């Protein structure tokens, strides 16, 4: 089985991340002046409270935990989008983060979105043209490719997005619930892409609430709870502990 033998691709050392949560009001100037200032108040919330974790070559790591446990925050910190309050995250190269939500340019066709996304990723126009068919087929959106992207279903968006972001195999791929909206066929293709990443001495981190997905794709699983790692180990083992602890108190 996969042990921690491969060399390290990402090294997270005692990472702390704090969020600023702005208090709602922002009811305009009147209140702002009444309070004597316009700057909004905020509270600091510690989302990651000291995480230490290594990723290795050829490894897919599952990241599980309740909503708000800090999974997405940890991924953002790994891409450098969120600054660390303390600790360190070092890696071989900047990871690519794949989230579920976004539509790049809703008014434009899928084809144009592939071009725009590809250019932003650093492909040249000719490289994108050359890979266009492959991307369209991978995403399985051929019949809709010239329609505006706002007409796409959530699944189609996610698939197209996944196809664009992995058109060039990244060394470190972070997937934040991007597989949940896909059908079985898409999951199979996504699994192939993740294998491609691992095959090229890379690493994948998969955040998911779908435990069968985690057990199927991951070599190792980390359970994040309230900003701390509760357990790391064999997928089946960790998933079982996680499920058994979280089920009884589901209110």
């Amino acid at each position, binding site marked *: 089985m996969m042990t921690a033998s491969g060399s390290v691709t990402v090294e997270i050392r005692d990472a702390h991340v704090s969020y600023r949560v702005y208090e709602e009001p922002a009811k305009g100037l009147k209140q702002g002046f009444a309070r004597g200032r316009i700057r909004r108040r905020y509270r600091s919330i510690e989302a990651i409270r000291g995480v230490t974790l290594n990723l290795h070559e050829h490894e897919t790591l599952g990241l599980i935990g309740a909503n708000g446990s800090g999974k997405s925050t940890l991924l953002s910190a790994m891409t450098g989008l969120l600054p660390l309050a303390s600790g360190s995250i070092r890696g071989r190269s900047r990871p690519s983060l794949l989230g579920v939500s976004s539509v790049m340019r809703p008014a434009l066709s899928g084809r144009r979105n592939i071009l725009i996304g590809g250019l932003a990723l*650093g492909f040249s126009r000719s490289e994108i043209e050359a890979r266009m068919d492959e991307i369209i087929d991978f995403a399985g959106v051929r019949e809709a490719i010239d329609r505006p992207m706002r007409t796409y279903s959530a699944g189609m968006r996610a698939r197209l997005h996944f196809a664009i972001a992995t058109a060039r195999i990244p060394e470190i791929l972070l997937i934040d619930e991007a597989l949940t909206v896909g059908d079985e066929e898409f999951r199979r293709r996504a699994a192939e892409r993740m294998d491609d990443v691992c095959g090229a001495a890379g690493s994948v981190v998969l955040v998911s609430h779908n435990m069968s997905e985690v057990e199927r794709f991951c070599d190792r699983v980390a359970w994040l709870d309230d900003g701390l790692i509760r357990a790391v180990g064999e997928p089946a083992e960790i998933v079982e502990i996680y499920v058994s602890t979280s089920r009884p108190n589901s209110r």
Partner: protein
Amino acid sequence: MDGESSNASSPRSAALRPLIDLTTRPTPLNYLREAWRRREFAIVVPAQDLRAQNMDTTLGQFWHLMNPALLVGVYFLIFGVVIDTSRGVDNFLGFLIVGIVLFHLTQRVVQEAAVSITQNLGLIRSIQFPRILLPASSVNGQTAAFIPAIILALLAVLATGERPSMRWLLLPIVLAAQFVFNFGSALISARIGTAVPDLRHILPHLFRLLFYASGVIFSVEAFVHSPGWRRAFALNPIYDLITCARWSLLGHTVDGWVLVGTVAWSLVMPMVGFWVFFRSEQRLGA
């Protein structure tokens, strides 16, 4: 499993590469290098946006020429015919056209850059790339859109009796100075416009004020006699740029302070703009 083959199987000899800190942002130089590597984005995307802009209109792409032509026409009708503000200006039509075309270029760039981040949140959230590419796209797109207007201005200047001279060769330098000034302004506008979206409502009024302070439709020389006040006008970058362009094309006088202003603004603005933008680049749209 493949322990012994791991060296051979990794073509990038990854095992030997040192780990880099992922949480610190790139140095300004590396950031610019990365943006430059993806410069095609800031060329192709605005070009496509421009093409898409007038798709639903009857005249289509022709509007990129019609718009500035009508703009100039309206101002000429009002200030050249109805109310005469030409007061002692040689070739007032040429004077007006050069001023309006250059002024509107800066205005369009700054106004579009103000929303360049907020209108591309989807892209920012789905793909990681140097965000400076978004205001850069605004600059490139609006500059490209104004090429017909600048050609129109040249033709109009010829039609009103000017003849090309050696001074015309300096126009590209004036336009280049305006381009880099616009670039710096766009970065500041993008930065402020992201933090305070209200900026997009403020900008039109700010530019209306600037419009009158830049001597676009009247000659500052003809109306402002105090040398002190004229020197104050030289603090206005748009007035400086327009005055230099008028000197180049129409041979109108330009004083030393205006030249100093032009050089200073076009050197300082890109640097200040980049500094302001880069300082909070990671937070923009996050």
